[in-house]
């Protein structure tokens, strides 16, 4: 690592961004989006632009590619130079030659950036032939070479497949091969692994590092994940509200951060292993709760749960015929405890969460607070809804955009016909206070809030009926790290004061480690390992669990050498 850094600082500069300032044009006047962004990218270097949502990191990358929507965003001053060539004033047709050939880009969601009705091979050859004079046959051979270079298994067959036939990781490999096919000098990767599972993420990050030296490209990596930064970056620029507030080598940023915000950002990242040697999550509230000290009866009991999609037209309509999403899942959950459900996408963890609440048809035995859940009709489940609630992944999507926050929180009371309008108002105010929001916000609409505030609103709504069990499905996955930490603290605090039991579904091992007492690891619809969090995390028995744990990016650049 030291080697690459020395080389990087001495290497010639490929891309220079100077004093880049950008305004957004809104009906209410212009708003500064980027404010004096300056950085240099050296040959063979990986520079990470790190920051939370809205910090301007993606806008910066689009500005370099000159792909900004010209009607709403305007560069007011600054310069972007590729070697000595100014890109901002370049004619559009000349810029088209730069894109792909000199600067290439890969995006977060490979499915949406590949053309769904075009074969992989055709898309690759098209990309190659746009910038290189080459016959179709030669281009196809080049495409095959590229697929081999990104280590796709069975590359020859992939050429004739469509994007939907590949897995997420393979699609991202195709995107990378497409981006590198013209040997660009600069590769911009905008959150390239955010949509991928953690084990796949580890593979893709490793691949990018290898390809960088093989193809002699420099990489600008845009990410919100300090763990990813620590894994791949030579240098880091921390962005906040359209400014670079701190920049330096990765080691310097992680070990000696100067700005308070950088320190906060690094501190907020949950570290795997942070709770080593403990049995329970940290205590947040100062209130001693005697009630839940020795919980006896389980609030949730699940025996041999199985969910099959598509056997008949169910919630998802046209599923594959009889696809078994979950089978043989059994567990029980006591008041005041948190059971973490971990696994990668498609492992059946969300399905389990929905089935437990009777939101999808299932077979097996589910008992909530002693009451068996037998039917999944809305009316039959109504009494159960007061005991068990759900918090979703995307707080914005799970709030009705046409309802004020106050109405949304009071909705459960209206549905269950509890209290009158005045009581509702008081209840909403007290719930908002409980989740750390001002009662005045009750008249506002969800779109007026930030992500973290919205999730607080969703938590308040889930608490309205004073449930005993909350199913939290990836509840913090969509939030920025600093906000995520605060929402997790809120959930812990509420658990302590209200004796809630959480079924905590997450793909993020570090978050699970912080939140849970017990853990269940799922894969392909089955539980592969379960037990106390301490046991599973500190001495995992199953290879899959070990793989999951080791794939988590660790926010410590020094660990890279050891690995």
């Amino acid at each position, binding site marked *: 690592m030291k080697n690459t850094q020395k080389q990087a600082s001495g290497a010639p500069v490929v891309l220079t961004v100077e004093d880049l300032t950008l305004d957004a044009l809104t009906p209410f006047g212009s708003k500064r989006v980027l404010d004096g962004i300056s950085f240099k990218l050296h040959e063979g270097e990986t520079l990470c632009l790190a920051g939370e949502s809205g910090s301007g990191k993606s806008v910066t990358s689009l500005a370099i590619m000159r792909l900004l929507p010209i009607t709403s965003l305007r560069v007011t001053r600054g310069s972007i130079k590729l070697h000595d060539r100014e890109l901002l004033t370049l004619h559009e047709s000349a810029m088209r030659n730069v894109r792909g050939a000199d600067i290439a880009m890969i995006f977060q969601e490979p499915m949406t950036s590949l053309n769904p009705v075009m074969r992989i091979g055709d898309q690759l050859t098209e990309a190659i032939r746009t910038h290189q004079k080459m016959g179709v046959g030669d281009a196809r051979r080049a495409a095959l070479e590229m697929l081999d270079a990104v280590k796709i298994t069975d590359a020859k067959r992939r050429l004739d497949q469509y994007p939907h036939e590949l897995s997420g990781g393979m699609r991202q490999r195709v995107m990378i091969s497409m981006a590198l096919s013209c040997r660009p000098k600069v590769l911009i990767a905008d959150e390239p692994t955010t949509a991928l599972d953690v084990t796949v993420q580890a593979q893709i990050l490793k691949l990018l590092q290898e390809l960088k030296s093989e193809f002699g490209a420099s990489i600008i990596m845009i990410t919100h994940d300090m763990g990813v930064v620590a894994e791949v970056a030579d240098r880091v620029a921390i962005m906040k509200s359209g400014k670079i507030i701190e920049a330096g080598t990765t080691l310097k940023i992680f070990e000696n951060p100067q700005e308070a915000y950088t320190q906060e950002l690094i501190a907020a990242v949950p570290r795997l292993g942070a709770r080593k040697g403990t049995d329970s999550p940290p205590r947040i509230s100062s209130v001693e709760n005697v009630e839940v000290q020795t919980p006896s009866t389980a609030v949730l009991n699940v025996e041999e749960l199985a969910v099959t999609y598509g056997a008949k*037209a169910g919630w998802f*309509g046209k599923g594959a015929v009889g696809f078994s999403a979950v089978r043989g899942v059994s567990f029980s959950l006591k008041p005041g405890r948190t059971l973490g459900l971990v696994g990668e996408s498609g492992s059946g963890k969300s399905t389990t969460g*929905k089935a437990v*609440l009777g*939101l999808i048809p299932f077979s097996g035995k589910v008992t909530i607070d002693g009451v068996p859940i037998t039917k999944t009709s*809305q*009316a039959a*489940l*109504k009494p*159960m*809804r*007061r005991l068990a*609630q*759900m918090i*979703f*992944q*995307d707080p914005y*999507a*799970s*709030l*009705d*955009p*046409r*309802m*004020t926050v106050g109405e949304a929180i009071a*909705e*459960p009371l209206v*549905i*269950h016909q509890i209290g009158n309008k005045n009581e509702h108002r008081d209840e909403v105010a007290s719930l908002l206070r409980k989740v750390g929001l001002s009662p005045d916000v009750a008249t*506002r*609409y969800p*779109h*007026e*809030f*930030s992500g973290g505030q919205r999730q607080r609103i*969703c938590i308040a*709504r889930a608490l309205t*009926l004073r449930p005993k069990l909350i199913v939290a499905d990836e509840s913090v996955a969509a939030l920025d790290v600093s906000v995520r930490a605060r929402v997790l603290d809120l959930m812990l605090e509420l658990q302590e004061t209200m004796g809630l039991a959480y079924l905590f579904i997450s793909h993020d091992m570090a978050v699970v480690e912080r939140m849970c007492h017990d853990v269940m690891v799922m894969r392909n619809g089955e539980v592969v390992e379960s037990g106390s969090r301490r046991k599973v995390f500190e001495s995992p028995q199953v290879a899959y669990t070990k793989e999951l744990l080791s794939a988590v990016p660790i926010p410590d650049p020094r660990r890279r050498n050891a690995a």
Partner: protein
Amino acid sequence: MRVLREILRQPAALLGFAIVCIVVLSAFAAPLIAPFPPEQQMFDGLTLEGSPMPPDAKFWLGTDTLGRDLFSRLLYGARTSLIIGVVANGSAVLIGLTLGMLAGYLRGTVGNIIMRFTDLMMAFPALLLAIVLAALLKPSLWIVALVIASVNWVQVARIVYTETCALVERDFIVAERSLGASHGRIIFFHIAPHLIPTAIVWGTLGIATTVLLEATLSFLGIGVQPPQASWGNIIFESQSYFTAAPWLVYYPGLAILLTALSFNLVGDALRDILDPLQRGRL
């Protein structure tokens, strides 16, 4: 009240609102405003050769081939056309909205039956259906409205169905279910409000097409029966005299255009005003 205030603030919406008001008022007050009875055939309404009179001081918009005053006929015709445009078209949107929403929410067998019926109706020639219905029932204004409503709901149902299917999959609907909300509550309080923009756009765009459909029916003799005037049948009665007496086509055409346009302007404004997302962010 807020809605009215917001409409008055936007120039385009205000213009549309004003024209709608004028059309509605003149339809109601037709007997007071009209200079002649609409069905009176006047001797001096025709030239000596028997052709219609162009607009002049006595007949403001000219006369038709039977020597009737066009201005008076337009005023009375506004009544017919408004009933067709608002009532028939409104019922069509309402039927389409209900069926589309039910099919999209319930899916399964019920949803399939509703949608296959919709497909059948779509494939069936609308005019043929209208002719059959009108032949079975005695033609009158309300029957025509009924016929138009039973033909025009299909497109709305299709669009609403697709939108509802997408809405049902959204997390906030799942969230409502997890709170224990009944099907009725979800449909009426959480799905219907999101379909208002679609309903408004279709409701206003449909006015012009329904007015013209009524004209077609009248032309075929199964619509509004002469001598009763409607904007559509004025155009159709006079179309063969277009080169000789263009005013007979221009003025009723202009009336349809203006009315449809102004309903559209009002609808557009309404859609924006009723959408909370258009309000400022925090």
